[in-house]
């Protein structure tokens, strides 16, 4: 019989992994299509959390309404981010320059710059401290399940992550938008010959990815009751690690890796102090890069 303590740790690990997965899905989607790392994804997460916070503080609507507004703000933020940080570097839209190193490095810097601007602006407006959240909105009501205790937030995050993941898989496989996204990801030049509006497809990819990022932000903010301007940094790093472990552009790979990451971190806290738990992610990143440069799930470079 498994010790209840480890069972509890496993549960915590699963919910942690789910949070990372929530973040990693949007991150990986954008990488898969454009082959660029969106460093501002963490700030989209923060913006989502703050948008929710403002909604709660000013109107106090039902949670579902908060989430819908957050998604709308995320969509807007994704659109703005694409126009400001990515579009200017897409002047040359042939395949060679879209996937060139210069393109990748330039957008790496521009998205990093956007993320710094967003974070610092939030600090100027709100200060760097934790914001107080109306306690009735927190999703941390305890539920006893046999020997383990979970909170209702675990269930909500699990449900949202599942819906997002399955929804996205469905979208990519069966909808016109999804097929266009995959086509642009696979062969941007071929997509133009087929009459696909590549510009619009790229914007949509950012919008979808950012909606997911913003939703993750508010959910995690309400889960921990901690909303502050630099809250996006750590999940951003973890999502990045999960993406690299999963093979860079495979969404299922990133989700599985995020779960592995969460469980390992939570298990590690029973061996080492919890401040060291973050080391797990970096160790995974290092091991993956050295021993599995193609990611943990085989050499196949299936994009999106």
């Amino acid at each position: 019989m498994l010790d209840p303590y480890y069972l509890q740790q496993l549960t915590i690990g699963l919910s942690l992994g789910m949070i990372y997965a929530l973040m990693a899905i949007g991150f990986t989607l954008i990488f898969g299509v454009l082959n660029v790392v969106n460093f501002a994804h963490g700030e989209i997460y923060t913006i989502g959390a703050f948008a929710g916070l403002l909604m709660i503080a000013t109107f106090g609507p039902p949670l579902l309404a908060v989430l819908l507004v957050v998604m709308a703000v995320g969509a807007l933020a994704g659109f703005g981010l694409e126009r400001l940080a990515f579009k200017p570097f897409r002047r040359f839209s042939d395949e060679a320059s879209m996937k060139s190193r210069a393109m990748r490095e330039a957008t790496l810097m521009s998205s990093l710059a956007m993320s710094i601007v967003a974070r610092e602006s939030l600090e100027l407006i709100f200060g760097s401290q934790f914001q107080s959240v109306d306690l009735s909105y927190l999703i941390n009501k305890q539920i006893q399940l046999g020997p383990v205790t979970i909170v209702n937030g675990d269930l909500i995050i699990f449900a949202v992550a599942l819906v997002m993941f399955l929804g996205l898989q469905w979208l990519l496989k069966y909808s016109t938008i999804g097929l266009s996204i995959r086509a642009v990801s696979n062969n941007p030049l071929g997509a133009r010959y087929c009459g696909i509006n590549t510009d619009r497809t790229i914007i949509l990819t950012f919008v979808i990815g950012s909606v997911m990022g913003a939703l993750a932000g508010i959910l995690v903010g309400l889960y921990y009751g901690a909303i502050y301007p630099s809250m996006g940094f750590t999940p951003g790093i973890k999502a990045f690690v999960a993406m690299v472990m999963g093979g860079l552009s495979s969404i299922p790979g990133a989700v599985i890796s995020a779960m592995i990451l969460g469980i390992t971190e939570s298990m590690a806290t029973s061996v080492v102090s919890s401040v060291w738990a973050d080391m797990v992610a970096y160790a995974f990143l290092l091991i993956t890069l050295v021993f599995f440069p193609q990611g943990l799930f085989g050499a196949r470079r299936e994009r999106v």
Partner: protein
Amino acid sequence: MSNLLEVRNLSLKIGVQEILHDVSVSVPRGGIVAVLGANGVGKTSLMRCISGIYHATGGSILVDGEDITKLKSHEIAERGVLQAPEGRQIFSNMTVLENLVIGGGPLGKQELDHVLSLFPRLEERLKQQAGSMSGGEQQMLCIGRALMRKPKVLLLDEPSLGLAPKLVRFICDLVERIRSEGYSVLLVEQNVKAALRIAGRASVIEGGRIVIEGEADDLARDPRVTDAYLGGHVH
């Protein structure tokens, strides 16, 4: 009758390089027109200008009387100009069916049966990853994908490149068949012999300029063409 596709005095400069100079080509309704020439003379650049991948620096392109010179590639596709481009540019990690459905755009699956009747080989491979097919099958997919939108003008850029003689025949027969169904075709080829056999009119391009232009039958007997492209004799 007016021409369906009309390229007028087109020129293209990329940097300081003049790729195309004063090129004029026109495709009549229901006709096959060939543009011939060796490697690197500007044939593919011409095709890219028509599809809006490159933007011409001079001249104009008209489809059904409408000026499409400044339009974006997806807007040009919406106006019924579809291309089976050089290098095929299929979506290699998607299935054959997905490739075709994307090609169909708003027409979706409506045209699928027609395309599959032209390419029975593709029907057997609908669920297969496009990139895992042979070169000839990929070429069929590339042409099929362009046909999914019922194009007014079909642009074919070197459809015979890298194919076995038997497949070259198949492609030639196919082009004649779709012409007989009412499509208009602009064909770019290095395989001059095959192209002259199916084309009505043809132009020869050299160094970015049209140097010879006329009926395909006349070109096939023109010593300038036979000497340079057909090894001095033609059957």
